[in-house]
């Protein structure tokens, strides 16, 4: 059990603490949190998974996007206590340490990132899209990503990256079927 800010926050009787249990990247985690703690901060500071970035604080930019029960959620405006009992996936959960998810490969192969700050959120939103629509059109990709802002790339290569990943995932699925 992790207690967030345990070492540094002086015990204060008027701050209530809530115990929550969630599944994070496939692993069950129990943690005591302040009710006002944001999910993004629990992930970053509590669980020390810094791939989830906070950008705008207002649900606009999507840098903090994680998947909650498979749905893209801006974790900067979701309270940690709201994740109690739910399944959360961050960029660190996309693939094992020595593996890459097709979406990660696609972003690298198509130069779909520059500074890298929006990338984890972009990839998780892309994963949710491809999970429900394995063969999207360019317009469908652009619409699905419209809640994730990028200031570097101009999006064209991000769209290509997602389409690249979709094709690869379909190929892999076909190969799996035949094998």
């Amino acid at each position, binding site marked *: 059990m992790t207690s967030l800010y345990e070492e540094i926050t002086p015990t204060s009787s008027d701050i209530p603490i809530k115990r929550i249990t969630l599944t994070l990247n496939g692993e069950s985690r129990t943690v005591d949190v302040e009710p006002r703690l944001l999910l993004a901060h629990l992930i970053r500071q509590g669980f020390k998974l810094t*791939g989830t970035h906070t*950008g705008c604080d*207002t649900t606009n930019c999507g*840098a903090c996007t994680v998947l909650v029960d498979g749905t893209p959620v801006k974790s900067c405006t979701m309270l940690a206590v709201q994740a109690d009992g739910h399944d959360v996936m961050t960029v*660190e959960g996309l693939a094992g340490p020595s593996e890459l998810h097709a979406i*990660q490969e696609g972003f690298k192969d198509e130069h779909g990132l520059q500074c*890298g*700050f929006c990338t984890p959120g972009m990839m998780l939103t892309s994963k949710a899209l491809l999970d429900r629509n394995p063969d999207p059109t360019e317009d469908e990709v652009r619409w699905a990503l419209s809640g994730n*802002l990028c200031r570097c790339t101009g999006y064209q290569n991000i769209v290509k990256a997602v389409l690249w990943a979709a094709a690869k995932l379909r190929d892999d699925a076909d190969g799996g079927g035949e094998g």
Partner: protein
Amino acid sequence: MVLDEIKIGGLGASRLRVEDNRFIRGKGNYVDDIVLPGMLHMEILRSPVAHARIKSIDTSKAWDIPGVRLVLTGEMLAARNLAWMPTLSYDTQAVLATDKVRFQGQEVAAVIADDPYIAKDGCEAIIVEYEPLPVIVNPEQARAADAAIIRDDKANQTDNVVFNWEVGDKAGTDAAFSRADVVSKIEMHYPRSHPSPIETCGSIADFDRATSKLTVYMTSQAPHIIRAAVALVAELPEHMIRIVAPDIGGGFGNKVPVYPGYVVSILASILLEKPVKWIEDKSGNLISTGFARDIYLKGELALRNDGKILGVRMHTDSDHGAFFSDAQPSKFKIGLIHAAFSCYDIPAAYLTAQGVYTNKAPGGVAYRCSFRITEAMFFQERMVQAAADDLGMDQAEFRRINFVRDDDFPHRTAFGFLTDSGQYAKCLDVGLEAIGYQDFLKEKEEAKKRGRLLGLGISTMTEPLGAGNSREYDILGIKMFDSAELRVHMTGKALLRTGAKTQGQGHETTWGQIVAHELGIPAEDVIVEEGDTDTAPFGMGTYASRSTPVAGAAVAMAARKIRAKARKLAAHLLEASEEDIEWELGRFYLRGAPQRGVTIQECAMAAYSNMPDGMEPGLENVAYYDPPNLTWPFGCYIVTVEVDPQTGVWDVLRVVAVDDCGVRINPMIVEGQIMGGLTEAYAMANMQFITFDEDGNCIGGNYTDYLLPSAWETPGYELHEVVTPCPHHPIGAKGIGECATVGGPAAFVNAVMDALKDYGVRNVDMPLLPDRVYKAITERTDVSGAPPVRME
């Protein structure tokens, strides 16, 4: 067998990026990802009003909150002579306000606490009493006879004028205008905009009492300049200051200046002897840091009936906000604004400029551009289109007859710059061919008959990229050169460090490609480090598209020094005299006996294990590069649009970009830069601006109000290239990062204006919001976007 340069990731290879390996795994290391033992957190309290005297600040309730360690106010800083700091433009800026606040969002107090939530609680517990003062939000108000003096802190400041400046030949220009058949005039406002990288600014200051060393991890595009500023201004010993810029989540000029938050975090760490982290929230970033643009133009072109431009006359009024903190290194007051019209052969030009203080955040950062270049080129290309329309000439032909010709280089522009290379007409032709110019003109006429409004806009420009040379460019007296240090290990693998700092431009990938080109060492055998002032050689950082022109050149020069020493080692290994040694990529061989050779890797091993008598061991070198001139890339951007006259909404049909940035090191990365730049251009033309109401409230202090384009609105791009190598750069490269941002906006606006030509509309200020375009159509009038705006 000669190495295949593309296979080893050399010049021209679209090598996939090295840095992506960590970014796609969420393993980047941005400043907010860094956690130091015992680290405290800082939050800044900002002014809610734009201009007010501070009557009192009561911090007692903040001190009472458990977990609050320190509350700092301007008064406490003043006691240490730190309430004000110098800016990069020889002005002063309040660190924490003492006498009064001068813009909404100005830093008033800081709370340092055990965690960021408690620090925020502390800020909310501070009570500040303000006495409101009259607010100034544009140059006209600033110049009014009875205007409040914003900078009454400055002894000799009796008005709100920052500077008056002029450049060019007044008499010659007047004479040109007196000879003109037609004088074309246009006025406009280039709105205030914010570079707004997704990552905000932040720092972790860590002062270690035991060693007296100050380490600052921070979002800086120019860490060495920060070290110099801390050493020279705070008078801390330079060797005891270490600035580390880790991964940066986009910069675009926003992360060049020194901001109060950095300074306060440093002071807090020194006072508390603990690491202090400050991570700005998005509103703080948008309302207080590094604005760009906010400049007004009165422009005139003297024209001959045959289309020849005889003279240019420009006056600009720039709004610098409350503190003149332009981060620009030229000796010119309003940056490189007079680089306008550099691609045109014009006999006479004259420009006057005035800068004023207003009650807005300090502005004048170079947002993805070189110091007012974006404004210069926007004004230029809007003036050019208006002039072509006034003459009734085809806009492409008008440009063509005024271009500097390919055989006229080097060319001294009317404003005094020296351009050195380009194929302007060819770029325009490639663009016109790609867009299908003649067909579109027919399509436009056909569409008009059915009530549809189509438009085509062109923007062509050359811009000076890559400050310095050091004769004309410096920051606080430090000359604008850059550096590279290359260390080749004994197995031929290498470590390269430069004075630049990547923020997404891909230096970790492209610098290795330059080494591969110069030495034949595969790019994958070169690791690149930047951003740590304790290890990187002194350089001026990354902005203004200067990395490839300056630091990139230094990489090539460092590699050439390595090659020169390796040649001596090769002669030793081949038992020949150095004069008889020939070079091919990655290998020295004996003249006349090409089978007798040694690879660069064998030379590297010899440098550590078998050097000739008297030779210094090792194989490393550092090069400082001071470019003889700026580089002059050229861009031609052509946009077609359809405007809906019923709503004022306009859609982009096509975007064609033809860029000539000389030799392309990594074409994939170059194209990525161009597409990013085009998107910023589209954003500024279409939606992205920060304005103010009459009380100085910033309209655009969050991403709900400050509209940035998403993948859905952003158009697709068609890219083309022309290659004119830079004559003075070691590998012929020119800057590229900002070209499309600089040249692009006018193409979008010209396209919409072209569509509105029949309505007698001369100008609609950016962004071309539907209500502005609708007003222009229905009222057949120009539309100004200058603040203040009325918020309904």
